[in-house]
């Protein structure tokens, strides 16, 4: 039986490495920064081993849950907050994903960040991020979870703004932080609301209360929506998605780890963790489904017209996260409407969502690392300046192609299995969203292969002399990419969904269902179209662009959402409206009050001074008037 200390160790090791790097290496051994790299990789590696041990324990454990005693963290008055760790199937899977991807990214980063002045600072932040991600996954009560939730947000800020001397990076970091904070506000409100009503932060107790029904009705709905808003903020769903494309300013491994696999998935994990609550309130779960579905197609359309590889990948991530939310939402709707029995339905929903998250983590990380190595070679991310890299970078091309196929959802690869699961579930419960998502399958395939063909096929369109300057990335970068490629293929076959409680599917049986055939056809169509436009150039992209000019501008301007937020919300409402009002209020009322009092006293002084005329008789009269007043008072009041 695994002792609790081990679980806590998984969390603390990365923190330990962070401490070592920032307190010892950075100040003293700054001339040899590689050490911080090795320390980080060592700590995360041990965490990976421990998580594997935990996975084995969970598989053996009855009901797949390891219950751990929790410690009292702090007690104020009658409220007491306990720190506890729950390792159940969901947590175990997430542990594996986080530690594995993080390890690979750290190895990759050694090559990518080589020679960067902030090298040890980079690794310090990376270990801090991994530690808080692990903490988030293992936390068993909301406050503890919220603590790491904020830690993760902080690290994303630090890493996006890693090259803080670049103004866009700094601005992107702040934007990311602020937008996620907006979501976190909802999440905090939800936690407090729950605590106010139930008096506990423990997730387990909350689930029982939700299922039993004591916690229900408006309170539950609002709490769920609050938690979902946190998820929307962190996983860049529709209203709060604008920060993710800008977050690409950070180093590419950061994007790979944080903005592809782990942090953005935290939102989906949160919804999965709180799934019983969501499932017991129909309004909340339908919101989740709708937001998920819409975001999927919305992001996909924008990805079509992006010219920067990382922007395309960013939008594709948003779209895939939309898929996961839709997966969870669809099953939740079914459970809420009673189509599925409660106990089985909960497990199924989590399985569907998390299985896609699991697969997506690997191939999306791979895609980002591929983009990173392309940038490493060409020095730019703009696809229009690339082309014909197939010959120069064969390994990168191969891994990139596998990942694209997997994300498009081609049969044997991982993408197909999890996406097919989501499609099946959404078909049953939310048919409208199913249609949207179906289109998205086609779009996903199209924009992924647009990227593949623009960067790797055709001639090199870059400025630097001729193609011979290009060279394959070093082994330390290619290694993790190959590993990820293998995982991208294999992860589909692993019995994750059964482990998580979903239904299993046979290897070849899947082909039997018409659903899978529809998605495969759509995917193939998408690939062929991309091949036609960008590789063979049978249809020139230009003519298409002119034909669908209005739609093209709509997509390329990202539905003017950024403008809407920046100009309208921030400038008009916040700055000109609210803050201006605050300014005016402060200026006129408060300053006015203070100055008014001063001015008033001075004026009063000036007037009262006139009473002192130096006329004795006036003073005498005042005395007698006073006496009269007193007597009058006595008379009146008896």
């Amino acid at each position, binding site marked *: 039986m695994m002792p609790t200390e081990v679980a806590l160790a998984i969390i603390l090791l990365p923190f330990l490495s962070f401490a070592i790097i920032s307190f010892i290496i950075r100040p003293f051994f700054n001339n040899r920064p590689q050490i911080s790299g090795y320390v980080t990789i060592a700590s995360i590696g041990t965490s990976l081993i421990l998580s594997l041990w935990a996975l084995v324990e969970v598989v053996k454990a009855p009901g797949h849950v390891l219950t751990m005693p929790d410690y009292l963290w702090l007690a104020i008055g009658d409220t007491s907050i306990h720190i506890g760790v729950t390792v159940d199937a969901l947590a175990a899977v997430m542990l594996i994903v986080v530690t594995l991807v993080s390890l690979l990214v750290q190895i990759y980063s050694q090559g990518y960040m080589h020679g960067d002045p902030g090298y040890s600072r980079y690794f310090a932040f990376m270990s801090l991020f991994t530690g808080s991600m692990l903490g988030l996954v293992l936390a068993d009560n909301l406050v503890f979870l919220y603590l790491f939730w904020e830690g993760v947000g902080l690290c994303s800020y630090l890493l996006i703004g890693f090259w803080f001397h670049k103004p866009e990076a700094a601005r992107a970091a702040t934007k990311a932080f602020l937008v996620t904070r907006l979501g976190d506000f909802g999440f905090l409100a939800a936690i407090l609301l729950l605590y106010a009503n139930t008096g506990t932060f423990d997730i387990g107790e909350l689930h029982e209360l939700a299922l039993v029904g004591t916690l229900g009705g408006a309170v539950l709905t609002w709490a769920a929506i609050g938690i979902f808003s946190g998820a929307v903020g962190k996983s860049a769903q529709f209203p709060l998605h604008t920060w993710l494309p800008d977050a690409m300013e950070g180093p590419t491994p950061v994007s790979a780890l944080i903005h592809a696999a782990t942090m953005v998935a935290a939102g989906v994990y949160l919804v999965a963790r709180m799934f019983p609550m969501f499932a017991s309130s129909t309004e909340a779960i339908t919101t989740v489904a709708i937001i998920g579905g819409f975001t999927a197609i919305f992001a996909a359309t924008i990805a079509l017209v992006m010219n920067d590889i990382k922007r395309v990948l960013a939008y594709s991530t948003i779209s895939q996260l939309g898929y996961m939310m839709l997966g969870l939402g669809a099953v939740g709707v079914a459970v809420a409407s009673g189509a599925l029995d409660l106990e089985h339905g909960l497990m199924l929903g989590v399985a569907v969502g998390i299985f896609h998250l699991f697969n997506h983590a690997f191939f999306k990380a791979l895609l980002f690392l591929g983009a990173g190595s392309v940038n490493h070679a060409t020095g730019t991310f703009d696809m229009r300046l690339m082309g014909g890299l197939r010959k120069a970078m064969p390994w990168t091309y191969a891994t990139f192609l596998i990942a694209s196929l997997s994300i498009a959802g081609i049969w044997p690869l991982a993408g197909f299995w999890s996406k097919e699961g989501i499609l099946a579930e959404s078909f049953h419960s939310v048919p409208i969203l199913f249609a949207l998502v179906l289109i998205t399958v086609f779009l996903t395939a199209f924009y992924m292969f647009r990227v593949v063909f623009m960067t790797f096929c055709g001639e090199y369109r870059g400025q630097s002399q001729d193609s011979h300057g290009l060279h394959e990335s070093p082994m330390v970068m290619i290694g993790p990419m190959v590993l990820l490629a293998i995982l991208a293929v294999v992860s589909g076959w692993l019995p994750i969904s059964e482990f998580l409680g979903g239904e299993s599917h046979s290897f070849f049986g899947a082909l039997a269902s018409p659903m899978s055939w529809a998605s495969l056809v759509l995917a193939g169509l998408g690939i062929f179209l991309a091949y036609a436009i960008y590789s063979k150039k049978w249809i020139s992209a230009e003519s298409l662009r002119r034909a669908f000019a209005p739609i093209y501008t709509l997509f390329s301007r990202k539905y003017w959402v950024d403008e809407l937020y920046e100009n309208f919300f921030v400038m008009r409402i916040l700055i000109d409206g609210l803050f201006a009002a605050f300014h005016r209020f402060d200026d006129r009322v408060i300053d006015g009050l203070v100055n008014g009092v001063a001015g008033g006293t001075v004026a009063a002084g000036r007037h009262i001074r006139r009473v002192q005329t130096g006329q004795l008789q006036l003073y005498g*009269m005042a005395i007698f008037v006073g006496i009269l007043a007193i007597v009058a008072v006595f008379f009146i009041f008896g």
Partner: protein
Amino acid sequence: MEIGITIAFWVLAAVIIGAALAVVLLRNIFHAAIFLVLCFFTVAGIFIILSADFLAGAQVLIYVGAIGVLIIFAIMLTRETQRGNPSGRLRLPALIVGLLFLITMVAVVVSTNWNVVAEIPEPTISSLAQALFSKENGFVLAFEIAAVLLLAAIIGAIVLVREK
């Protein structure tokens, strides 16, 4: 005897009020001063009606004999007499305050019922001396302090007015 007192009271009251008004209203200061003396004299008469004979004597001696003369001296020494006795800016408000005060006082006087003792007091001098100088409840200390006060006032006045 009773009628005599009543008549005397009304006559004296009329004279007092007339004299007081004259003091306040007359243009010529000297006339005002004379009427003031007349007023003091009639107040002494009132004291007699109230059978406080020692006080009547004292009143005449102090007010008419000393204060009246002093005021007339002051009038002589300050050549303001040409400008007479103008009234200042506060004429109307002063009138109002005065009237209000009168009304209040009269109201108070009329409204409270005094427990009047009807007995006629016998000659006052011995009992007054008793009150002033007797050891137990006498005002000896107050009397001495009054003496010192007068001394201080006199010396002060002399110092103030002495030609340098």
